[in-house]
């Protein structure tokens, strides 16, 4: 093995220009691989961050209770069904018991217990439907970045203040410091002072959402105890699918990952990732063909030497080893060079979360450097097998006599 490595290295170093060109070709292929990985990955992160960055990653809700189905005791042919009460609400009554353990769960970035309901916001003669969310004042930005998206005012909540979407406020002609009335679907009506206006860039929230304190929501929706749901933000939103079942098992409640409500986005991202994989696959195929053809040429050029080595007692395995190791060295050196070049070129680009609007969402962290080097080395080794086998079959008699 050591001796095969010596031969492989000597063969590569004896023709520096050819080796340099070969390594350069591999490095360019790996650079394309890394660039596409970083671009597709960054684009995906950018889209996900912009689309679901301000929503819950896992939502805990009380399981919906299906209406009871009963058989009439005196007549089995008649089925009696208890209809679900229209005003019945699914409430989490045991949230206080598991909230502390949820908050300390590794991978959880923030937990926000909420009371939610529908209602109307009334300003003079104007009425507009609104989705009201009651949150703990200290966690107003736990899920959606309200504080970072303030268009006016401040994000601090008291029991008598409300945060409104900027579009909704504009429709109603209301500003910070002015009063509005909120009427819940329970018929309770209260007056709030507008503390701030937010513009998250999501029309559904900016035109229809209002945030109040948890205590204010409790009185507004006539809920003496319990909460409506718990929204959880994860450190890595891609782990939501794995996290949700764990949380459901832990709490005994229904836990829904964000992916369930965003299948179209996920399909789009998957299609995008597939396109990237195709391009990366072509880059790898190019590398394999390049290495195989260069080593085949080298095999042909070195036929006399291979013949003499075989005559001197070199086994076929030794000859195969010399050429496979050449392939591995080319793949490894080219792979590391390409990956390093990729990292150096991509690093100056701002990360997707910091990318300016209309910017280039490249994520140098998602360059898949190790994968690129590993696949390239394996590809180069596979590419060298054909030339290596051809070399091992060289007949010493043919080349010695020529």
């Amino acid at each position, binding site marked *: 093995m050591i*001796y095969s490595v010596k031969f492989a290295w000597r063969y590569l170093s004896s023709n520096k220009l050819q080796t340099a060109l070969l390594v350069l070709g591999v490095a360019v292929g790996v650079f394309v691989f890394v660039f596409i990985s970083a671009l597709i990955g960054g684009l995906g992160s950018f889209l996900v961050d912009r689309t679901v960055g301000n929503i819950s990653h896992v939502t805990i809700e009380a399981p919906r209770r299906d209406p009871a189905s009963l058989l009439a005791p005196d007549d089995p042919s008649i089925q009696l069904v208890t209809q679900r009460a229209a005003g019945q609400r699914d409430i989490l009554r045991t949230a206080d018991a598991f909230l502390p353990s949820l908050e300390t769960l590794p991978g959880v970035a923030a937990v926000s217990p909420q009371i939610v309901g529908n209602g109307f916001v009334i300003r003079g003669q104007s009425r507009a439907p609104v989705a009201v969310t009651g949150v703990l004042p200290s966690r107003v930005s736990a899920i959606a970045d309200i504080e970072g998206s303030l268009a006016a005012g401040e994000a601090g909540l008291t029991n008598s203040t409300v945060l409104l979407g900027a579009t909704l406020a504009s429709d109603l002609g209301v500003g910070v410091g002015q009063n509005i009335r909120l009427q819940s679907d329970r018929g309770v009506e209260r007056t709030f002072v507008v503390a701030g206006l937010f513009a998250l860039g999501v029309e559904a929230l900016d035109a229809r959402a209002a945030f109040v304190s948890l205590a204010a929501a409790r009185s507004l929706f006539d809920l003496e105890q319990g909460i409506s749901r718990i929204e959880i933000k994860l450190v890595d939103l891609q782990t939501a699918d794995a996290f949700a079942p764990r949380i459901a098992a832990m709490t005994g409640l229904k836990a829904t990952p964000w992916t369930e409500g965003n299948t179209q986005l996920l399909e789009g991202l998957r299609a995008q990732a597939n396109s990237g994989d195709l391009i990366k696959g072509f880059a790898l195929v190019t590398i394999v063909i390049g290495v195989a053809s260069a080593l085949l040429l080298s095999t042909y050029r070195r036929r006399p*030497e291979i013949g003499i080595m075989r005559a*001197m*007692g070199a*086994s076929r395995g030794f000859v195969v080893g010399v050429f496979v190791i050449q392939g591995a060295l080319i793949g490894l050196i080219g792979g590391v060079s390409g990956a390093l070049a990729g990292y150096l070129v991509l690093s100056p680009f701002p990360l997707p979360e910091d990318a300016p609007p209309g910017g280039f969402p490249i994520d140098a962290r998602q360059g898949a450097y190790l994968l690129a080097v590993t696949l390239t080395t394996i590809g180069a080794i596979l590419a060298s097998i054909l030339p290596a086998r051809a070399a091992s079959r060289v007949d010493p008699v043919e080349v010695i006599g020529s």
Partner: protein
Amino acid sequence: MTALVEVTDLVKTFGDGETATRVLKGLNMALERGDLAALIGPSGSGKSTLLNILGTLMRPTSGTHVMLDMDMTGASEAELTEFRNRHIGFVFQFHHLLPDFSALENVVFPTAVAAGWESGTARRRGEELLDRVGLSDRLHFRASQLSGGQKQRVAIARALMNRPDLVLADEPTGNLDRESASRVMALLKQINDEERTAFLISTHDEMIAGACTRQIRVVDGAAISDDVTG
């Protein structure tokens, strides 16, 4: 006494059917330890084919080939490769050195390729052999930096590296000037005298053939005379 190597009724045919060419036609021959034999005969008589078969680089079509009591015709390719490495040395007309390697690396090759690495012992043996062939000042010269005579002496040192029982030389002086040819032949004779290594030298050169102790003449694929002069 058992012969070092013996071939009996050796036949070698190239091609099939109407294009078949029989090069060796029932050749019989034996070599003893310490023989310094010249293999002579006209071009196309089958000398090179015989050397290739004796060197286990080629299998005969029929006949037997026994060396050191081992039947070569029944051995696997891996067994032949290992046998060749341990017991047979080659010297070719065109030296066939590895051009990207130094004189010492070329000489050490047969030992290192079997062991998987260049040991210190092997390198010392290589240095001794190069010193013996008068190239101690060329140890680290690449093959391309050596003259024709020097290359052939490196090839002889390489052939002797594993202390072979038999060295097969195909026109070893055919590509050298008179002076270099004489020096190479003197070297082969000296090694034969000192180490009792058997040599079979294929040659057209009367001077080389005359310097050997046996002259085996091959004509039309068969050995027709075997003269002992030494």
